[in-house]
């Protein structure tokens, strides 16, 4: 940026809220020089700084790309509305935190897709960054725009705006893709040629090389490569050995407080529990552990490099980590003296919990969180959530006896086959948890029982056994929420629920096809932005966007799909087969459970990946 622009930026920063979001300069930020021959990558997080800086994936990719001598990675986040408007008024392009480089100057601009409701932010960031929104409008000098992350498993609603998507783990694939793009740009190759080459990098899906056609009833008719060399299907990337993979040893430490402002140790990737609503459980297979020994090493380095006072363990199911006891004890032995607290989120209520709990209690008592997901055993069997009421009450009882008094219980409503009896089961469970607390003698329990019951609305997701399912209509969800509000009027119990309209739109995008790109564009034009933030969510504008695009949101959200329907995401292969998913769907409707596949192979499809299921 030239000096005049920088001066206008300075004046702008002096009048926006929380300017620390936009200035970078954090401890351990990597500011590399823009030398000739270096491939420049802007990692874009389509949400605010506080959210972005809580995200482990960004730190991993940032670290890996910056380790490469021939490339650099800088961070760009979604500005808050005051900054967005200010940037536009002042004619300042959206810029990176490290070198304050406008987005349009990078070779590659990459978005992480964590959440459907961040999609409008992507369009705003492209616009603010001076990059043509539609890939068809981009010229030779414009950056190649890529995306990855969990929502990339159904990339179609973004096909018009993103040049290429990465499927699966990014550790190895990101530098490979960047190298292909960087070399192509230095050699002066045409954009189309670079994208063709990019499609040859395993895991890369280049939507422009494929064509979709639709039946009269709106279902997908065919999906095929328009380019003979484009792979079909596109197989996801799998990082087989976490111990050998790079993991950041020093991470940027924000001055402004992030939502999760601490060291995060990824203990494991993948989950074999097979909960039928859970997309992550299918996407991140196979299960891979990082050894306790490696985690101790990383923890020591991260503590020295950051000065963080808190550490947490991350995975889809930390209670299943085979070395959990050893890990927690080892971390405590190393760090309790330094007053570093260890928190263990998202623990399952079976497994090694008791052992782990008695250890965390020595350092810090944070709240307890459990996710029974459904209120009755029948429905928990339907969703294959292998948790019983007995487990829950026993574990909660042990925790209460150790001095815990706050419990959060997470549920979903609108699950397939759900009845009102299942909903009332939620209230029943909350009452029983309270009962366990009051059963303890007064002197043996901490004061101030607080039970928080949070009910999310079920969103059927691609690559899950419920990918065929209809989402409950808005009216039905609202009725169920009202029922629960009444049933949960219990002393010491707080009930939280989400706007069902947001879940409805999530459902549209989660299983959307290419035509949803038009809805997204219209919503962006109507000013939709930061839709994940309650105060900015504008449902009416979204409905108008559907209307303008000539599409019916119910077609996407509330329609039960036939078994044989061709899905927009089927050209991607995440490992788990459609046949397995259908089999699980049928078992769900019979309320039959499926065991953890570490007991015996269930034939989900992952064994096709060489070396995937060896552990």
């Amino acid at each position, binding site marked *: 940026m030239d000096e005049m622009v920088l001066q206008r930026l300075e004046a702008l920063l002096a009048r926006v809220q929380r300017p620390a979001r936009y200035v970078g300069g954090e401890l351990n930020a990597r500011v590399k020089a823009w030398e000739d021959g270096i491939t420049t990558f802007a990692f874009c997080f389509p949400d605010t700084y506080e959210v972005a800086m809580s995200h482990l994936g960004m730190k991993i990719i940032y670290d890996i790309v910056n380790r490469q001598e021939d490339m650099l990675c800088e961070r760009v986040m979604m500005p808050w509305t005051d900054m967005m408007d200010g940037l536009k008024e002042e004619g300042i392009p959206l810029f990176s935190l490290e070198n304050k480089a406008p987005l349009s100057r990078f070779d590659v601009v990459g978005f992480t897709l964590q959440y459907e409701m961040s999609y409008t932010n992507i369009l705003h960031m492209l616009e603010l960054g001076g990059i043509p929104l539609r890939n068809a409008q981009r010229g030779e000098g414009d950056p190649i725009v890529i995306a990855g992350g969990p929502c990339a498993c159904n990339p179609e609603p973004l096909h018009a705006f993103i040049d290429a998507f990465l499927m699966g783990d990014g550790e190895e694939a990101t530098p490979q893709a960047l190298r292909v793009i960087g070399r192509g740009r230095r050699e002066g190759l045409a954009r189309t040629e670079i994208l063709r080459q990019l499609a040859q990098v395993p895991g890369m899906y280049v939507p422009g090389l494929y064509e979709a056609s639709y039946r009269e009833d709106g279902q997908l008719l065919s999906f095929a490569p328009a380019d003979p060399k484009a792979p079909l299907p596109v197989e996801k990337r799998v990082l087989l050995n976490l111990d050998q993979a790079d993991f950041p040893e020093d991470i940027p*430490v924000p001055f402004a407080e992030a939502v999760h402002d601490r060291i995060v140790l990824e203990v494991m990737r993948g989950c074999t529990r097979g909960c039928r609503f859970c997309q992550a459980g299918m996407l991140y297979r196979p299960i891979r552990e990082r050894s306790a020994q490696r985690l101790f090493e990383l923890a020591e380095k991260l503590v020295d490099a950051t000065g963080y006072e808190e550490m947490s363990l991350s995975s889809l199911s930390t209670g299943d980590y085979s070395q959990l006891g050893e890990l927690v004890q080892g971390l405590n032995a190393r760090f309790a003296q330094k007053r570093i607290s260890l928190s263990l989120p998202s623990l399952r209520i079976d497994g090694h919990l008791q052992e782990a709990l008695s250890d965390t209690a020595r350092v810090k008592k944070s709240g307890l969180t459990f996710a029974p997901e459904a209120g009755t055993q029948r429905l928990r069997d339907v969703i294959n959530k292998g948790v019983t009421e007995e487990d829950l009450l026993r574990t909660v009882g042990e925790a209460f006896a150790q001095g815990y008094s706050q419990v959060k219980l997470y549920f979903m409503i609108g699950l397939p086959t759900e009845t009102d009896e299942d909903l009332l089961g939620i209230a029943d469970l909350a009452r029983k948890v309270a009962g366990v607390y009051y059963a303890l003698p007064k002197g043996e329990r901490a004061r101030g029982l607080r039970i928080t019951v949070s009910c999310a609305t079920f969103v059927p997701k691609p690559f899950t056994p419920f990918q065929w399912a209809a989402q409950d209509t808005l009216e039905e969800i609202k009725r169920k929420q009202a029922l629960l509000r009444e049933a949960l009027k219990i002393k010491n119990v707080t009930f939280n629920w989400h706007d069902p309209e947001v879940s409805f739109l999530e459902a549209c995008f989660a299983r959307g096809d290419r035509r949803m790109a038009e809805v997204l564009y219209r919503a962006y034009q109507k000013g939709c932005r930061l839709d994940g933030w309650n105060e900015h969510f504008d449902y009416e504008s979204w409905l108008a966007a559907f209307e303008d695009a000539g599409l019916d949101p119910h077609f996407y959200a509330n329609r039960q799909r036939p078994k044989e329907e061709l899905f927009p995401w089927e050209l991607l292969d995440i490992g788990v087969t459609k046949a397995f998913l259908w089999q699980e769907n049928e078992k769900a409707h019979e309320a039959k459970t499926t065991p953890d596949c570490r007991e015996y192979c269930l034939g989900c499809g992952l064994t096709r990946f060489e070396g995937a299921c060896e552990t």
Partner: protein
Amino acid sequence: MKMLLVFKKERELRFIGHLDLQRAMQRALRRSGLPSSYSQGFNPHIILSFAAPLAVGITGEREIAEIPLMSPVSPAEFLERLGRALPPGLKALEALPQPDDAPAAMARVFAAQYAFAPLKGQEAVWGQLTEALPAFLAREEIPYIRRSKSGERPDDLRPGILNLFEKEGEMRATLALNQQLTAKPDQLLASLSETAGVDQPLLDIRRLALLDARFAPLEQP
């Protein structure tokens, strides 16, 4: 013992607020391995206190913090270890050991010295501001609306302006900063701009020193 630290908060950190600075300093102390003291209770944190919070947007040339230590450390070692651990934009300048019972720096602050300088392209408005200085200082009262958490109330800025002059292309001000009387640099600039009849410009503002009741820098024995 406790250590009185003189540090610099450089221009690149001017948008970092007080609480963020406090956290950054605590993390630096943790990284340094110095024998910091911790608070009791649920979430123990490193104890430190700043003599006076610095407003967002202002650079601090000689800011002051006090850090209680569990065991004695020489000033040289303290400076060396903390200096290595501080994030970019924070510089440890001096360390002065204090007896445990020395009065808190926070209680000794009486005034602060500021420098205002124009940015590029602000020559015209700068000229108008400096020309207005005599008239501004001649005012017996400089009424303004003081905004605080507890609401708004009319106040007079004039008594808090202890000294104000132009020197070598900068404006220097000594402003009261104590329980009885406080004048803030951005209000000074707002009121001066009003007197000069110009829109308040965005100047480069530095806090040069924190002064005690003798008008000596706080760190001077």
